[in-house]
């Protein structure tokens, strides 16, 4: 897997509310959303969502249930088409793109309710992630031309290398649907990584994991960021994980951003506390 080399891009036009870590400040941001919004019927599920994510940032998106976090992910990956606003991935507009095209532009994601290819082996799941990295057409696949063998060998090696991030090489031959829950979540991350993204969206990666597995996951998320030099944006309810690794956190409530900042700032923000715990009775 080729590591991404940093390019000296334009300076990030930092809006005053931006929370990009310092090392990313002089590179163009990987994701810029401005005034993003979507209506379902008359209901505005997401309103005026603005965010800038730096090249190697780990960003967190938190909020109470039903705040619209997954909707934001679905907007970013074009599962839903936004009613308003723009999304720039690496400076390019994603308007009118399909989910597959957005993936090729550099956004990969995992799902809150795991979506693996259950009847296929773990290795095949990762190889499907490598789909756009392996290049041969259906005809050379049918005729098994030399290119087929070369590319398949490469796909096998990359798949094994990616699986080794989570120590899952031994499971390569198992059916994805037969894996335990935690392993399925990890496999989804591996599959997303296989698409060679520059921004990885993780939707509740720690859901259903026990505390020690969560700690391991935190280490792995940081490891992935450091190895592949990509940005990671995650939705999570486990505050230890979010506060532990996220450099910038964005709090969503009723489809609107109510706070942005570092872990410390968020923890002490009265608006956030109110959204989670309710208003303290006066007097």
């Amino acid at each position, binding site marked *: 897997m080729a590591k991404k080399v940093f390019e000296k891009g334009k300076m990030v036009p930092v809006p005053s509310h931006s929370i990009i870590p310092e090392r990313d400040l002089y590179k163009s941001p990987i994701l810029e959303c401005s005034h993003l919004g979507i209506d379902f019927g008359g209901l505005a599920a997401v309103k005026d969502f603005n965010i800038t994510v730096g090249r190697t940032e780990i960003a967190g998106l938190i909020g109470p249930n039903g705040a619209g976090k997954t909707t934001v992910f679905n907007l970013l990956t074009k599962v839903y088409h936004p009613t308003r606003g723009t999304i720039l991935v690496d400076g390019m507009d994603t308007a009118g793109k399909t*989910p597959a095209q957005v*993936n090729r532009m550099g956004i990969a994601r995992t799902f809150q309710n795991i*979506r693996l290819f*259950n009847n*296929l082996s773990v290795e095949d799941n990762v190889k*499907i992630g490598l*789909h756009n990295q392996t290049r041969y057409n259906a005809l050379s*696949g049918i005729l098994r031309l030399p290119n087929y063998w070369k590319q*398949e060998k490469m796909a096998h090696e990359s798949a094994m290398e990616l699986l080794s991030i989570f120590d899952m090489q031994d499971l390569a031959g198992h059916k994805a649907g037969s894996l335990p829950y935690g392993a399925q979540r990890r496999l989804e991350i591996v599959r997303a990584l*296989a698409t060679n993204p520059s921004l990885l969206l993780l939707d509740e990666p720690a859901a259903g994991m026990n505390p020690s597995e969560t700690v391991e996951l935190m280490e792995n998320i940081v490891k992935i960021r450091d190895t592949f030099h990509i940005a990671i944006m995650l939705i999570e309810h486990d505050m230890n994980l979010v506060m532990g690794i996220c450099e910038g956190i964005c709090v969503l409530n009723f489809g609107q951003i109510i706070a942005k900042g570092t872990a410390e700032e968020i923890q002490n923000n009265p608006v956030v506390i109110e959204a989670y715990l309710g208003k303290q009775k006066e007097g």
Partner: protein
Amino acid sequence: MKNYFKNMKTITKVDYATYLGVIAAFVIVTLLQSAGMLTRSMTGMLVPICCYICMAVSLNLTVGILGELSLGHAGFMSVGAFSGVIVSMSLQSSVPNELVRLVLALVMGAILAAVVGFVVGIPVLRLRGDYLAIVTLAFGEIIKGIINCLLVGWDENGLHIALNIDGTKTMDSLHLGENSIQIIKGAQGAAGNHRIATFTAGFVLVMITLIIVLNLVRSRTGRAVMAIRDNRIAAESVGINVTKYKLIAFVTSAALAGASGALFGLNYSSVSADQFDFNTSILVLVYVVLGGLGNIWGSIIATVVLYVLPEALREFSDYRMLAYAVVLILVMLATNNECFKAALSRVIPKRRKGAAANG
């Protein structure tokens, strides 16, 4: 070499076993045939069996691998059969070699069926599940309807084609010249074909179908198709162009059905559109479902058994469809019912695990 075999994946082994099984079956049947041990009715069944194996394997690509229920597979077979007959009959004088004509007919059948598959596939593959099944069913009937009023003749000026939609046209309205051949006569179908299909050709077609389908499934393309089957949204999220890969699978399936249709058509002196109706589609679907969805060698075995069975049960005349139905139910129970499977494994204690779980 021994080591190589050891390191092969189970799936690869199953593939090679399938090829070997088909080759072995062909050799045995050919030997029996040359020894004169096959009855006339059995010899007559050889080519249709090959055709139906191709049909079942290609339908398995749509139903088992792509995961979309298609009820119009006989429509593609029909397109292939009639285009094959047209090619064979109009080239009678210019290409006297039967083998060359057969190959041309099969290729033409495959190409035309692929074109029809592409045209039908673009709108149809936007649908899912029951809706797709209904539309493909309608498509099969439409093909039947069109061919039922198709008039095709050939003379020295080339092909003459007319559509007898209002029922007023006859073969005379084609204005055929000297030395003409009437190829398709509307609802009567095509008659007077040269029966140029052979068992060897059938075997080669089965092998080609197997190589195309199995190699496709084990390639990047096949993985993408299976990914769409298992989870369309996830497939899109990893950058797979869903429409493209659905179309590839559907068109390949249609082309193979067209080739087998051409072989089928050239095995009889007359074919009519009614032979490729809804029942044929369902028949092939039964082969696929009983053989196991996505299981290629299962389709082959199911086809052979279920095709030979009604013929073998001919002695019981009145009861034969009853027995056929009972066998169908038993096979379904044996492959799908847990209680029945458990009972079966008690009777046959050393039933190898995982033998049924591949493909």
